[in-house]
């Protein structure tokens, strides 16, 4: 069996080949200085004439770079319209069997067994909410490592990395389009699924979003670390697939953690994402939480800080090693 190919065919993510350039960056000698400084990761580079590129300009440059990467991914996405149709269909393919499986345990409109585990009988809302959250987690987890791998295969990684943009900004840029497309897909999905399967996600959206935010940001740390791993092992599709699937399964994205076998529950409790899914469901659906809600929210904030620091550090170490050994273009 070939490994799953989420992007269809390898080799289509080509920033350079698509004719895309980072727009409106400083020109001439100023550009060279800024390029060198940003590539080194210096905080306040000096440009000809004695002026400084202030942190505000640095942020503006980063945003422009992210915008350019977003535009490139947008163009590639619509170059393969069948993929776009498929990505809209995919959630229906995965959620419909769950719905019918749930129905085979329901009597008189009530899922008594599920309610005993979670505190709610609305299994479809439980699964949909976890599914939508895991789509965001996957968008970050997947897109960094997968686009890096595709650029390696297409032979444009080195040239893209010569652009005057910090590597971390390039990595974040790769997730921008995924997050926007996941948001659009989620809106369509929620609208249609709500009509088809009649579930209610509650009204406390704002507190739920505030709770979920540190979880998604923390995943960027995972993504940075994984990007490092892709640079090291080069064929990371299987690893991404398996680890993403396992993390989602064990953290309770679609199955309540309480329903896992005991030895897996211990592992689930050690994954910070578990508390993200658990807390958001408690806020929106009124399910029972594993720990007090405030404690779960605190864990998520700690997770975010630690993972970002760890991920950036790991990626930096691997990237320096690849540059030293000259293995960046190998695949």
């Amino acid at each position, binding site marked *: 069996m070939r490994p799953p190919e989420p992007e269809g065919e390898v080799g289509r993510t080509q920033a350079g080949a698509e004719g895309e350039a980072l727009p409106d960056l400083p020109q001439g000698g100023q550009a060279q200085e800024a390029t060198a400084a940003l590539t080194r990761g210096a905080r306040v580079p000096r440009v000809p004439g004695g002026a400084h590129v202030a942190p505000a300009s640095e942020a503006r440059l980063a945003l422009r770079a992210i915008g350019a990467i977003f535009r490139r991914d947008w163009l590639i996405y619509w170059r393969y319209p069948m993929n776009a149709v498929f990505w809209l269909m*995919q959630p*229906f393919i995965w959620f419909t069997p769950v719905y019918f499986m*749930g129905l085979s345990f329901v009597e008189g409109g009530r899922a008594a067994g599920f309610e005993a585990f979670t505190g709610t009988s609305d299994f479809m809302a439980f699964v949909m909410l976890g599914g939508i959250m895991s789509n965001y987690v996957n968008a970050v987890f997947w897109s960094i490592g997968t686009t890096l791998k595709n650029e390696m295969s297409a032979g444009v990684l080195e040239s893209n990395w010569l652009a005057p943009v910090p590597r971390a900004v390039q990595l974040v840029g790769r997730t921008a389009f995924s997050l926007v497309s996941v948001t659009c897909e989620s809106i369509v999905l929620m609208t249609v699924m709500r009509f088809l399967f009649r579930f209610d996600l509650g009204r406390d959206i704002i507190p739920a979003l505030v709770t979920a935010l540190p979880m998604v940001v923390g995943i960027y740390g995972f993504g940075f670390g994984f990007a490092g791993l892709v640079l090291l092992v080069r064929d990371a599709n299987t690893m991404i697939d398996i680890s993403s699937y396992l993390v989602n399964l064990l953290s309770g994205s679609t199955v309540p953690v309480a329903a896992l076998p005991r030895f897996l529950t211990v592992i689930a409790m050690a994954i910070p994402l578990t508390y993200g899914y658990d807390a958001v469901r408690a806020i929106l659906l009124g399910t029972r939480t594993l720990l007090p809600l405030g404690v779960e929210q605190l864990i998520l904030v700690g997770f975010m800080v630690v993972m970002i620091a760890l991920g950036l550090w790991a990626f930096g170490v691997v990237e320096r090693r690849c540059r030293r050994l000259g293995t960046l273009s190998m695949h």
Partner: protein
Amino acid sequence: MAVARKEWLVTKRYPSWILAMVVWPILLPLSFAFGGRAMAGPSGESLAVFARLTGTVDYTGYVAVGTVLWLWMNAALWDSGMFFRQEQMRGTLDSNWMTPAPRLSHLLGAELFSLLTGFGMTTMAILEFRFLLGVRVTGSPWVLALSVAAVLPCVYGLSLLFASLVVWAKDVSTMVNVVRGAFLIFCGVSFPLAVLPGWMRAVASALPLTYAINAVRTAALTKVGLGAVGRDLAMLVVYGCVLLASGLAAFNYMERQARRRGSLSHY
């Protein structure tokens, strides 16, 4: 044989592909198995409802049979679809077809390799389910073996047909995902068909995987004789003949079209 050997050499070059073959047969059914556990409840509160619809309280075994067969079908579609597509992308399809071997033998070699890996994956899944999740095969091994044998022509007939379609459509992932998605939704991989609305049951009755899952599930999980799966086996034989004939016809048609239009190396 040479094509099958070449496929093995390529696969061996990527250890992560072999890892995927070992790991997915156990990982994928887990989400359905744990989902069933969640729906059943901590003390089996809802198990009676499931048993009324399916005739068994062993939801793990029920789900295991469906997902293993679905995975097998999925792998066969990927293998056959990717075989020609990868040759096209590498630019080796034209040169391979210029060898004096019959064109069909290229595809049959790939199908042989797919059959062997599919058999390996299924064996792995059965062992993993037996020792990790405690699923026991309680039915007659002969009836089970006959049921599995009846599934083979369907799976590989469909994959022959699929390989030819992929050369024509030049897109594997979307086609595989649509076909495997339809099987997952309609064929009762993880749930009894009784919970589907009438129109979906009608669609299910037109798909060969429905009969395959029903036959193998009945043979593996219940102590019944050949008579209980006779109708499913008869349907599988009919589907197998039709799909094999369609697959061969589609391959011949695709080959003629590709030569006439000179589109073999397009992608």
